[in-house]
């Protein structure tokens, strides 16, 4: 497909990525299918997000998680999509998160809009966002057991877990 008809960030100078690298030395800039990505360990995520916001990324458009069960050594990857309106470019932050300690710092203090997205990530994958003001289930019922988007969560034949379901009979 020709490049000009594809959505995607406008190719900009990489001064911004370099300045982010200076602010957070553990961050590694990379390219993935034509997009700018930064890989960073979980402990530096909040610092990187603060630097990115100061650098002009006003909006956190998306936070999600990928479960690489059986594909990668580190099972989860938290994916943060940032958008800069003034520079018209996107930046994706990839944070590997091990299964044993699925905790990353919350981005709500930096981007308030991360609230719902982090709740969804917690609900679906069981990733804990340290410092989130209200880390509860958002889409599944409160008393649901398990995190449905994990790849070892079976698709079919889930017993009904809704509150007071037995009383209906």
């Amino acid at each position, binding site marked *: *497909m020709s490049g000009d008809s594809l959505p995607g960030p406008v190719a900009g100078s990489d001064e911004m990525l370099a300045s982010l690298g200076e602010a957070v030395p553990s961050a590694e800039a990379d390219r993935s299918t034509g*997009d700018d990505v930064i890989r960073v360990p979980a402990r530096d995520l909040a610092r990187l997000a603060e630097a990115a916001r100061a650098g002009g990324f006003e*909006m956190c458009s998306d936070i999600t998680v990928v479960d690489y069960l059986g594909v990668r050594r580190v099972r989860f990857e938290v994916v943060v999509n940032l958008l800069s309106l003034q520079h018209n470019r996107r930046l994706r932050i990839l944070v590997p998160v091990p299964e044993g300690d699925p905790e990353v710092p919350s981005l709500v203090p930096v981007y*308030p809009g991360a609230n719902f997205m982090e709740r969804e990530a917690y609900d679906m994958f069981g990733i804990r966002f340290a410092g989130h003001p209200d880390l509860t289930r958002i889409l599944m019922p409160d008393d649901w057991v398990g995190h449905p988007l994990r790849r070892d969560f079976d698709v079919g034949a889930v017993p009904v877990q809704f509150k007071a379901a037995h009383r209906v009979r």
Partner: protein
Amino acid sequence: MMAEPTSTTDVWVSGTEAPEVSEWMVAGTDEGAQEMERDETIERGVEQRGARVVDDWVVDDTVDDEERMIVNMGPQHPSTHGVLRLNIELEGEIVRRVKPIIGYLHTGMEKTAETLTYLQGGTNVTRMDYLAPLQNELCYSLAVEKLLGVEIPPRAQAIRILMTELNRVSSHLVATATNGMDIGALSMMMYGFRERELILAFFEKTTGLRMNHNYIRPGGVAADLPDGWEEDVAEILERIPRAMADYEDLLKENPIWIGRTRGVGIITADECLAYGVTGPTLRAAGVPWDLRKAQPYSGIEAYDFDVVTGSRGDVYDRYRVRIGEMHQSLRIVEQVAAAMPRGDYKTGDRKVSPPPRQRIDESMEALIHHFKIYTEGFKVPAGETYVAIEAPRGELGCYLVSDGSGAPLRMHTRAPSFSNLQALPIMMADSLVADTVACIASLDPVMGDVDR
């Protein structure tokens, strides 16, 4: 395109003072974007702006418990536009805090996507935002195509733009109609759905279905436009602007409508950016951000259109922005229809696209090829990508991870309604309880999109 201002309530005045936003935002408005006049005297708006960008869902001990009442609105309330539940904390007639509670329509579509092949995936995503199914399909298809690296023929791109822009009009018609109904303009409800029917009839003729089309697919579109599509589009282009003039007569200067919407549900540009609010809500707050202009897709940069912005960020501005966007979308449709390229409606890349029907009759290999594409699906190279387009409600994104097999390892949709819903507590804080339905309607949340 717009009529000359006829009275003081006409907000379509270009060349008035720019919204009070950063330099770069103002710089972006000169592409014919229309700015509305500013009204500095809305005291309630100033008061609401006091709701800064913090989540203030904490109990305030200074108010006596007897004055405070928590009311549950929904999930079956007709004005919540689906199964949305709101925990509203009231002090008399004043809404102090709101907490949206969602998930009633959650059907695990992202989980389902992992079990479907890339070709089947379209049937899944089209059911997310059921008022804008074609945008969902387009976003998903663009993400798959970006990983595949296939070339899309110009006719397929033009058909995609034609269909998605018509979809934007039909979606905004519903938004305007239900907004009218919620505030008491019942005839607006009838009008909006009447005109939407025209577009849905065209969709049915083209795709076979009124909604959930699965028409835009990885590699192109499912079928060419039907015979006589030019006349249908010409009728849409003739009748909808005429009907919209009726809406303008009905609502634009209607004192009741203005009283119920102006200065109500204000959200500022800064709050929108902080909360990830996009689409008409962001533009009504004065930010000329439209992904069709900023990060164009499917060749939409070839057509002339303006980004419509407001300045106050209230319910009235959001209504005005939607009306303006409908005119702009019809402008795009007119240009696409006038210059529809000839050629294939799907890619000739045999890795993605099945062989033509007549080849199947004469060649065993073509039959096997056809069978394999529809049973196993095509393989997509390993990788991950994020693609976003401008849906009627804002930035619709698709984050797609492939492990090189025939089904995605992970398909995540960045739903505009999901993020926009976070703005509801900001809009409604310290407003009157009667304005609640106006705020919800102006945000235009689609619960299928929120819960997925």
